C-alpha cells in the first residue's frame, strides 16, 4: 500500500495530495529557514494562529452573499488578511511598546486564535450544514481536495519560492548582521516584513493540508534539520527545501496508505523523524558525533596526564588512566611503563619543559597563547625553534621525536 502511495498509484485524490504536500514542504522549508536564521521561529506560530478569524469571517461573508462558503480562494484571501493584521499588531507591539517579541507573539497568537474559535462556534450554531470542513483548517483535511485546490497550493508555493530566491541575499545579510545591513543602506525593517509576509503566504497556502496549528512545524523543523548537516546558509536553505519536500511527500503517502491516518500530523511526524535522525547522526553537530568527540578528547587528556605521571615516577591512581595506558600498550597492568611507554613519557615531559620555556619568553607571546596542555609543540614551532629551545634546556637530545 505504502509503495503504491509513493509511486502515485493510489488514486487521483491521494496523488494530488502527495504532490501538493511535497510542493508545500519545499516552499515551507525554504521560507522557514530565513525565519529560523533570523531567530524568529515563533513568529510563524503567531501568524498561523492569526489566520483563523479571517477564515471564519470569509466564510460568513461568502455565505451572506450567497456564494459557496467553501470556496478555497475566498477562504485563503480571508486568512491572509487576518494574518497580515496579526503580523502588523505584533510588529507594532514590539516596536512601540516595551513588550518583547515573545510577549507580543503570545498576545497576538492567543487573542486571534480565541477570536477565531468564537467565530467558528458561531458558524457551527448557525446550523446551515454548509460549514462542513471549516474545522479542517485547524489540523488540515485533505479528504476532499480538488484539482483547483492543488493548483492554488502549487502556484502559491512556487510564487513564494521565486520571491525567496530574489530576496535571499538581503534576508541572509539582515539575519546575520542587521547593523551592518542597515549601515549598507538595506531597509532592515521592510526586509523583515517581507520575510514574514512570505511566511504568511506559505502558511495560508498550507492551511488546507497541514492546518494552522501544525504549519509552524513544517516551517521550522526542516530548517533545524538542515542546520545539522552544513555550515553554509545557502546549503541550509537547499537542504531544508529537500527535507520539507520529502516530509510532505512521504507523509502524504503514508497517510494515504492506511485508513484514518490524518495527513497533516503524519507529515509533521515524518519531518520530525528526519530531524531526530539528523540530531543523532549528523557528522559534526550531531549528538553521537559530540559524544565520540568528547570520549576521544577525554582519552587524550588521560593518556597525556598518565605519561607525565610515568615520566616523573608518580603512581597512577585513576583507573581510567591506567586502563587507557594499558590498552595503548604504554603501561602494564601494575602501572609500570613499557618500553614504548617510557619513550612516550620522556617525550611528553620534555615537551612540557619546552612549553615552559616558550611561555616564559616574551618573544614567543603569540605561540604561548596556544598552550592548552594537549597541543603538540611540533604543530606550532619549527624544527629549528625547538632545537633552539632544547639548547636552552640542555641535557640529552635523544628524545626528539
Amino acid at each position: 500500500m505504502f509503495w503504491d502511495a509513493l509511486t502515485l498509484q493510489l488514486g487521483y485524490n491521494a496523488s494530488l495530495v502527495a504532490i501538493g504536500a511535497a510542493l508545500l514542504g519545499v516552499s515551507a522549508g525554504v521560507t522557514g529557514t530565513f525565519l529560523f536564521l533570523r531567530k524568529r521561529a515563533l513568529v510563524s506560530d503567531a501568524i498561523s494562529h492569526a489566520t483563523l478569524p479571517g477564515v471564519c469571517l470569509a466564510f460568513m461573508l461568502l455565505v451572506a452573499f450567497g456564494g459557496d462558503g467553501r470556496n478555497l480562494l475566498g477562504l485563503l484571501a480571508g486568512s491572509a488578511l487576518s494574518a497580515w493584521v496579526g503580523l502588523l499588531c505584533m510588529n507594532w507591539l514590539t516596536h512601540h511598546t516595551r513588550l518583547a517579541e515573545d510577549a507580543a507573539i503570545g498576545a497576538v497568537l492567543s487573542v486571534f486564535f480565541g477570536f477565531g474559535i468564537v467565530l467558528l462556534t458561531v458558524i457551527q450554531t448557525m446550523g446551515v450544514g454548509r460549514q462542513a470542513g471549516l474545522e479542517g483548517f485547524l489540523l488540515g483535511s485533505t479528504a476532499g481536495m480538488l484539482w483547483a485546490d492543488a493548483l492554488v497550493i502549487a502556484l502559491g508555493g512556487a510564487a513564494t519560492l521565486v520571491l525567496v530566491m530574489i530576496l535571499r541575499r538581503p534576508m541572509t545579510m539582515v539575519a546575520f548582521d542587521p547593523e551592518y545591513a542597515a549601515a549598507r543602506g538595506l531597509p532592515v525593517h521592510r526586509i523583515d516584513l517581507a520575510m514574514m509576509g512570505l511566511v504568511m503566504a506559505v502558511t495560508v497556502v498550507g492551511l488546507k493540508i497541514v492546518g494552522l496549528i501544525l504549519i509552524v512545524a513544517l516551517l521550522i523543523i526542516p530548517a533545524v534539520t538542515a542546520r545539522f548537516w552544513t555550515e553554509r546558509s545557502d546549503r541550509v536553505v537547499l537542504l531544508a527545501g529537500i527535507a520539507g519536500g520529502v516530509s510532505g511527500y512521504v507523509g502524504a503517502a503514508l497517510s494515504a496508505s492506511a485508513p484514518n491516518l490524518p495527513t497533516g500530523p503524519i507529515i509533521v511526524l515524518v519531518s520530525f523523524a528526519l530531524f531526530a535522525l539528523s540530531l543523532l547522526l549528523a557528522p559534526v553537530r550531531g549528538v553521537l558525533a559530540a559524544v565520540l568527540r568528547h570520549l576521544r578528547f577525554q582519552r587524550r587528556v588521560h593518556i597525556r596526564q598518565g605519561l607525565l605521571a610515568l615520566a616523573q615516577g608518580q603512581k597512577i591512581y585513576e583507573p581510567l588512566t591506567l586502563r587507557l595506558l594499558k590498552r595503548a600498550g604504554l603501561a602494564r597492568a601494575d602501572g609500570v611503563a613499557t618500553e614504548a611507554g617510557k619513550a612516550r613519557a620522556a617525550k611528553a615531559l620534555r615537551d612540557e619543559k619546552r612549553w615552559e620555556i616558550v611561555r616564559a619568553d616574551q618573544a614567543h607571546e603569540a605561540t604561548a597563547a596556544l598552550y592548552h596542555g594537549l597541543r603538540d609543540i611540533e604543530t606550532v614551532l619549527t624544527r629549528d625553534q625547538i632545537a633552539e629551545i632544547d639548547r636552552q634546556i640542555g641535557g640529552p637530545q635523544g628524545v626528539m621525536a
Partner: protein
Amino acid sequence: MTLELAANHGVSVQENGLGSSPLAIRGLTVSYGQKPAVFSVDITVQPGAMTAIIGPNGAGKSTLLKAALGIVPALSGQVTVYGDALEKQRARIAYVPQRASVDWDFPTRVIDVVLMGLSRELGLLGRIRGRHRARAMDCLNRVGMRDFVDRQIGQLSGGQQQRVFLARALAQGADLYLLDEPFAGVDAATEKAIIAVLKALKEAGKTVVVVHHDLATVTDYFDHVFLINTSKVAEGPVEQAFTAETLQAAYGGRLATAQIDQISRALG
C-alpha cells in the same frame, strides 16, 4: 560650546565650507528612552586622517557612529557625508561593527562574510564570479586570513573574527571607514595586523574613524582625536586635543591621576 552649537544650527554645510569633510555632524542627539546617550554633538572628520573617538564607558561613542550611519534613529541633528546626504553617499562608507553584535554560530563561512561586502555589486540575483572571489581573497590576504577562507566563522578566535569583519569592509572599496572598537578583546597579532591595514588605507588617502578605548596607544595610532562624554569634550589633532586637561574633562574621576600623569608624560 553650546553657544557655538546654537550658532551652527541651521547653517547649511556649504556655507560652513564643510563640503569636503568625509563625515560632518551637527547638533546630533540620540536617546534611548528619556536620557540622551549622545547630546548635541558636532564633529567634522578630517579627510585622509585617522581619527580616534575616545571617551569613558557609556559615553556614547558607539551610539555616535551608529546614529551617523542611521542604524539608530537620531532625535535631532544633521549628518553629511562628503558634503552630501548620507543616503546618496552610502556606497562610500564601510562600517565595521562590534564583534559582539552578531551570532557567531550563524551558518556562514569566512568567504561568505567577505562576499557580503560586495553585495552592492552583486545585486539581488548576480552570480558570484571568479573576480568577486578573487577580490574577497585579496581582502582576506590583506588582513592575514587567507588560510581561513572555508572555515565556519564560529571556529575563529576573537581576533580572527575581527579581521574577517575588516576584510568585509575592505571588499566594499569605500573611502570612509568607520570601526567600532576593533581592538576590543583581540590578541596582539591581530591588533598589529589591523593597525597596519588602517595605516595603509590612510596612505592611500582614505579616511579612518575608530571608536577606541585604549588611551595608551592613541598617540601611536592616530593623528586626530574626538573626545566625547555624552557631549563633545574636545576635537582636533592629537597633540592639541589629547591632553591631560581634555582627558580629565572627558573622564572626570573615572581616570586615575596616575594614568593621566603617565599619558601626559608620554605626550611630552
